[in-house]
């Protein structure tokens, strides 16, 4: 649209529903030092009232129309979404346009949501066994990149946020040229475009330069190691290796490699650690798909009586085998089949289809990549997999964290 709002329409009339999925290209990586958690706190504030929608009425409007809704914040983006009965499309557009145009929040709302977010941090991270592992790992793996601070933020930074700050954040990032709106479902395209124009067409953004950090993290040359005590019954091991960003040609092979190693009970490492040697209660890996260079993660929880250093020794032996000998044709084929089927699963719901279109558009700059995703997965070769394993899954490129149960005499502290 002329004001810079990017619009994607995807029609599917098989069930009378419509998904409204609006992305703002801002996440916790846009936060400065001392502002951690702000993008996410702001996401909460988007439900606290706008010009024509009083606090909490956003939920009320959507739910009493028979819709569901939510929002989420990640390192790279913030999304807002509603799934509505098809005849309520206009309501969704009105609500999103109103809070893009003019937020109306108060000191009191901010205080309340600050408390809610602090409890959110405790519920999801601090008070959960192993809940802080990712936070602790990212904090050590990165020296410069803003990924080093977590999206949820620190409690001190959350307490320090001000209303003025909330307003400035809205002015800078919540404007049409930083947003992409995807509609998926049962509608007429011309009518949908007309409605989008009607509600969003006259929103004019500030002419400010968006703060988009792009920081080059210097290559890691020696291994980083540390340990953390937690209220956990079984020790755990977490590794993170630096890998390129999600649009780099090595990313998909890394994703395939992760599938081969730990996806499903028949995967290589699940079989060796959990089924055969029985040294781990669980093992997962993940190639973290980020706009700037991310991490390849492993998390293993030890079986009773097994130690993290034993798991680590065995893991390096397994990775060494992959680096030297690669993986088998059968393993590669299986991983591709699983990725194909999980892709098909993830498009069974309109909302996840809309979100995927936005992912490709905002983070990879091209929504139509969704149609070539399977082809790109199919094109990954045995050589690709071995090459990325040798390049990235190396000792020196690794941050290694042991999670250990509190020693017995300490565990009663603070009673």
């Amino acid at each position, binding site marked *: 649209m002329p004001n810079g709002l990017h619009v994607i329409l995807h029609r599917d009339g098989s069930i009378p*529903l419509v998904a409204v999925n609006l992305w703002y290209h801002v996440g916790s990586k846009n936060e400065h030092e001392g502002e951690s958690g702000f993008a996410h706190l702001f996401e909460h504030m988007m439900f606290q009232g706008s010009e024509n929608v009083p606090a909490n009425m956003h939920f*009320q409007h959507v739910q009493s129309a028979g819709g569901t809704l939510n929002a989420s914040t990640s390192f790279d983006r913030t999304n807002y979404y509603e799934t509505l009965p098809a005849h309520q499309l206009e309501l969704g557009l009105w609500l999103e346009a109103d809070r893009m145009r003019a937020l109306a929040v108060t000191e009191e709302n901010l205080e*309340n949501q600050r408390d809610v977010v602090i409890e959110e941090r405790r519920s*999801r991270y601090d008070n959960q066994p192993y809940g802080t592992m990712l936070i602790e790992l990212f904090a050590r793996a990165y020296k410069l990149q803003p990924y080093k601070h977590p999206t949820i933020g620190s409690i001190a930074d959350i307490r320090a946020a001000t209303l003025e700050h909330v307003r400035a954040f809205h002015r800078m990032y919540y404007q049409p040229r930083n947003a992409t709106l995807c509609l998926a479902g049962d509608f007429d395209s011309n009518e949908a475009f007309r409605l989008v124009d009607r509600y969003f067409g*006259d929103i004019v953004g500030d002419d400010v330069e968006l703060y988009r950090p792009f920081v080059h993290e210097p290559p890691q040359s020696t291994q980083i190691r540390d340990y953390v005590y937690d209220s956990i019954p079984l020790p755990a091991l977490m590794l993170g290796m630096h890998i390129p960003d999600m649009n780099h040609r090595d990313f998909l092979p890394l994703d395939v490699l992760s599938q081969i190693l730990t996806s499903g*009970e028949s995967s290589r490492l699940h079989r060796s650690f959990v089924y055969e040697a029985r040294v781990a209660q669980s093992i997962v890996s993940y190639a973290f798909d980020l706009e700037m260079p991310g991490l390849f993660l492993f998390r293993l929880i030890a079986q009773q009586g097994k130690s993290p250093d034993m798991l680590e020794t065995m893991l390096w032996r397994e990775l060494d085998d992959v680096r030297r000998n690669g993986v088998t044709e059968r393993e590669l084929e299986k991983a591709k*089949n699983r990725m194909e089927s999980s892709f098909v699963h993830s498009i*069974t719901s309109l909302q996840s289809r809309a979100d995927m279109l936005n992912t490709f558009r905002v983070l990879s700059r091209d929504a139509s990549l969704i149609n070539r995703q399977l082809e790109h997965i199919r094109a990954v070769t045995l050589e690709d997999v071995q090459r990325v394993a040798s390049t990235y899954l190396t000792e020196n490129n690794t941050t290694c964290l042991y999670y250990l149960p509190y020693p017995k005499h300490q565990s009663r502290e603070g009673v």
Partner: protein
Amino acid sequence: MSTQHGRDVKLPPAPGVPKDVTFPDYHEQVLGNGMRVLVHAQRTLPLVNMNLVFRGGSSHDSALAGLASMTGEMLIKGTSTRGAQDIVESIEGRGGSIGSGAGWDSMSIGITHLSRHTAHAMDVLADVARQPAFHEEELQRMREQRLADILQEKSSPGVLAWQRFCAALYGGHPYGVPQDGDERSVERMTVDDLRRVHAERFFPGNAFLLVVGDADPDALLRLAEQHFGDWSARDAVIGDDAPPTAAEERVVQVVDRPNAVQTSVVVGHGGISRTSEDYIAVSVMNTLFGGYFGSRLNLNLREDKGYTYGAHARFDARRHAGPFAAGAEVRSEITDLAIEEILREMHRLREEPVLPEELEHVQRYVTGSFPLQIETPTQVAQRIISIELYGLGKTWYNRFNSSVMALTPERIQESAQRYLHPDTAAIVVSGRGQQLRNTLERFGAVQVYDTDGAIIPDVSPLAQDL
């Protein structure tokens, strides 16, 4: 703001015309041996979801906690012709997934796969249902996994509070014991126990095969006939499980987690059966009370007070009345205030009729979001399983919306009076034991437990004086 486009943006736009939604119909056929085959074809994506369901679940575990779920999980860990790894490899290798286990009222095996592999999936399904091997070596693996899982659960604040709550309510009845068993029962389980459960429950007349997704009903029936047709019929029915009795007096229990930075709160009592005539009224009453974001509980505890990231309530409806529980994870210092608010909201719903507008909001939410509940094959399958398992009748979901719309403020109040009991509700929390022992005393005598379930005596100076 006003409008270069000549419109009024101050008020929400009027909705368009709603389209009719009906619950998907499904074909039903019965094999010669009594096994039923149900198919709902949904041919938009090349996916198939198959579930083979047997009546009788964890609620029959009165002799050995966790037996149904262990038997269920072990079904796919080897048959007379396939090893555990062969089974999972053959399904996952084709891009599918396989799982098995037990619910309160059933045991089941589920396979999701791309439709070009339906014949293979059916072959595996029949094999694991009919010829599971229950090898000792595989059982030992599962025991170790379970024991580690049980240990893990002892560090999870939500699980600790929930398990103690169930024990407080139902004692030794299976509803009061973890579905996956405890250390002792898991250690004790033998392959003979598993074989006995299989022999009792796994026969054609006690089963139905449900297929949802990209499948042709006739072809599917032929395939089912080929793999299950020669399974001998048996003239038997599964015996009834003993109904639970929920405690009806106030107890206040704390599970001590010395390093907790929050308290997990559960407040509740016995609830409702899935087959009850009051089920719809009670679930709408609960939605209004604590079942969606705009519920009274969440607006009060989260949006008004900022005590929690989210507060909710649920009636867990099973064949017999399962628990009703309201809960939240709250800031430690205000645990007592949060509990007070939960009880206050329960009282309010009993004592005052809801406003017609508030009820209407909930009715529109529940009926309007119905298409969202049947969007994916998995969701449709879950609902058909409920219809079959609880004998609701094929038209149950088609009557659902009109039953919801017919509810009145009086009917909601009546349901609250009958199904919410703030004065006798059990109050169970996990968090910092010593602190909570003192602050929760106003609700009744406080009992503190460690994470292994042993009582921690009160050793504060005050208690010694008394």
